[in-house]
């Protein structure tokens, strides 16, 4: 290979790498610019706030999912845990703010812990273990709500404020999501735990040989995912003023879609939280745009999200191949 060839392939490499990492962000900017140009109602600060508040719970779930997927795993239970967390928070709010937050966190983290232990120590597939947890958590939620017939109303004003209050014009939920995302980024980039997460996703066997605590890391990743899903449910309950027992929330697949759109590979080892943020916001903006077009069936949102997902993953795969070829 001549020197110019090498230089060219290095350049392709770099461009492909940037597109892979920043692709979701570029698409997000494009879509936002388009929306700003076309929809007058999109241009208000209020609307931006609405988008961010709506994106906060999915953001938390997708944040946990990013960690899980980076280790090469998957967590199908987060949708159920989200609903369960909401019901638990509303139920526990009768005992005050602290209970309303701690009860869902404790229960959902425990279910995450069970997921993690089973996955790390029995080598059962994450897909199956968390599928069982999806059913189990939904069963628990139904048992708690008398088979879905009882809706608990939030009884703590302090807890309700958590969902409805705002600081500097942005809802508390948004601040919470921003802070947790920043912490997540720091953890992933600067701690041994973050390194282990990437290492395990890259090659589990190699990481084990290098002395990475594979099992411990895996357990923590699922605890984190459960915890964040429960938290997302709790803040949603605070916003709505009740624990909504809508079945089959499907949040797990939305979260996976956001993570994948954000450029994290489902095989693990490569990806970023920044990408996930872009992925979640992209799905949120699409939804908002479709709401702007009054006479457009809101189901178009699903269609467009699906198309986006397909295009993004196909482009990523092709780019990946290009890079390997070069």
């Amino acid at each position: 290979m001549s020197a110019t060839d090498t230089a060219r392939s290095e350049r392709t490499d770099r461009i492909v790498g940037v597109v892979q990492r920043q692709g979701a962000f570029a698409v997000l900017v494009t879509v936002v610019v388009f929306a700003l140009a076309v929809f007058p109602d999109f241009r208000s600060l209020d609307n931006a706030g609405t988008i961010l508040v709506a994106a906060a719970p999915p953001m938390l779930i997708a944040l946990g999912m990013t960690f899980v997927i980076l280790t090469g795993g998957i967590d199908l239970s987060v949708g159920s845990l989200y609903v369960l967390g909401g019901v638990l928070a509303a139920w526990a709010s009768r005992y005050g703010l602290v209970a309303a937050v701690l009860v869902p966190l404790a229960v959902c983290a425990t279910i995450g812990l069970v997921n993690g232990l089973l996955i790390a120590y029995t080598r059962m597939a994450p897909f199956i273990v968390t599928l069982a947890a999806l059913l189990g958590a939904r069963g628990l939620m139904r048992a708690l709500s008398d088979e879905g017939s009882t809706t608990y109303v939030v009884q703590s004003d302090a807890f309700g404020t958590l969902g409805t209050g705002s600081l500097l014009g942005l809802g508390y939920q948004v601040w919470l999501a921003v802070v947790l995302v920043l912490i997540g980024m720091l953890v992933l980039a600067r701690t041994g735990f973050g390194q282990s997460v990437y290492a395990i996703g890259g090659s589990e066997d190699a990481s084990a040989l290098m002395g990475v605590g594979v099992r411990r890391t895996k357990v923590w990743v699922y605890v984190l995912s459960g915890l964040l899903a429960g938290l997302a449910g709790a803040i949603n309950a605070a916003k709505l003023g009740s624990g909504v027992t809508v079945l089959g929330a499907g949040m797990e697949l939305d979260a996976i879609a956001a993570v994948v759109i954000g450029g994290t590979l489902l095989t693990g080892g490569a990806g970023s939280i920044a990408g996930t943020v872009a992925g979640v916001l992209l799905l949120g903006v699409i939804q908002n745009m479709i709401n702007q077009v009054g006479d457009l069936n809101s189901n178009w949102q699903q269609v467009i999200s699906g198309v986006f997902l397909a295009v993004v993953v196909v482009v990523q795969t092709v780019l990946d191949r290009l890079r390997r070829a070069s």
Partner: protein
Amino acid sequence: MTTSTLSARRTDVRSWLPEYGVYLAVGLLVLYNVFFTPYFLTLSNLRIQLIQVAPIVIVALGMALVIGTEGIDLSVGSVMALAAALIPLYLGYGVVAAIGVSLAAGIAVGLINGVLVARVGLQPIVATLAVFVGGRGLAVVISDGQLKDIRNPELLYLGSGDLLGIPVLVWIAAVLVAIVAFVLRRTVFGRRLLAVGGNRRATELAGLPVKRVLITVYVVCAVLASIAGLLSVARIQSSDASAVGLLIELSAITAVVVGGTPLTGGKVRILGTVAGALLMQLVIATMIKHDLGPSTAEMAQAVIILVAVYVARERKTR
């Protein structure tokens, strides 16, 4: 008893349990119901159970084949919704046209999934996730979000008619089970499918048409899902794209896994899949008959899944 026979016996149980455990569980649950559940053995109850499980069995058949290639298909519920949405649109041209169009939709989705997996090289879960997300939305858009009543007598016959005293729906499911089992065991395609799932690389090197096999498998899975979709519409006598096949991907995967088909591919158990679907159905029915709500049934199902997979795992590592 000598030690050797003892250990031989233990090995027997170990290899026997994952293989036949699901039939044992179904048998025990049926026995329990026969003795302790009033009216369980009535014809009408057995009919209801079979009719309810039939669409899941049909979807699970396709899922079992996909899982046999080390894949997964999350789009089956959306395919059912698409089929359901298309039927009322084309029923005016006759029942054959309506069925034809919904099957064609299945073929189209299957081709998309298959090409994304086999040619583009996407992971099956991602490839089918896109259709999962978009497909149901499209179905609801097509049907304008409306629930439409179905009055066509021929179509309704498929959903609620009888043949020789057995519901047509159950006949169809049984015939499809037989066909899929035959194809898997006795045809070149079946052997190739298992080869692809067992070791894709080696199969490719052996010169077998891996991509074609994969694409075919996803098409078969989607077509089976659209059959399940149109049968569901025929049974419920109305088409509601936002409800048909909701969460069925999970029921189907559960049936396959509980039936002893490993997610790692290379091995498919068709009868086990049917038994897995029956087991899950019976768990729900039993709980409800004894005044325990769906909550208890779901928690029991979670435990069954874990136990089934754990038992199967024991055998693999041995």
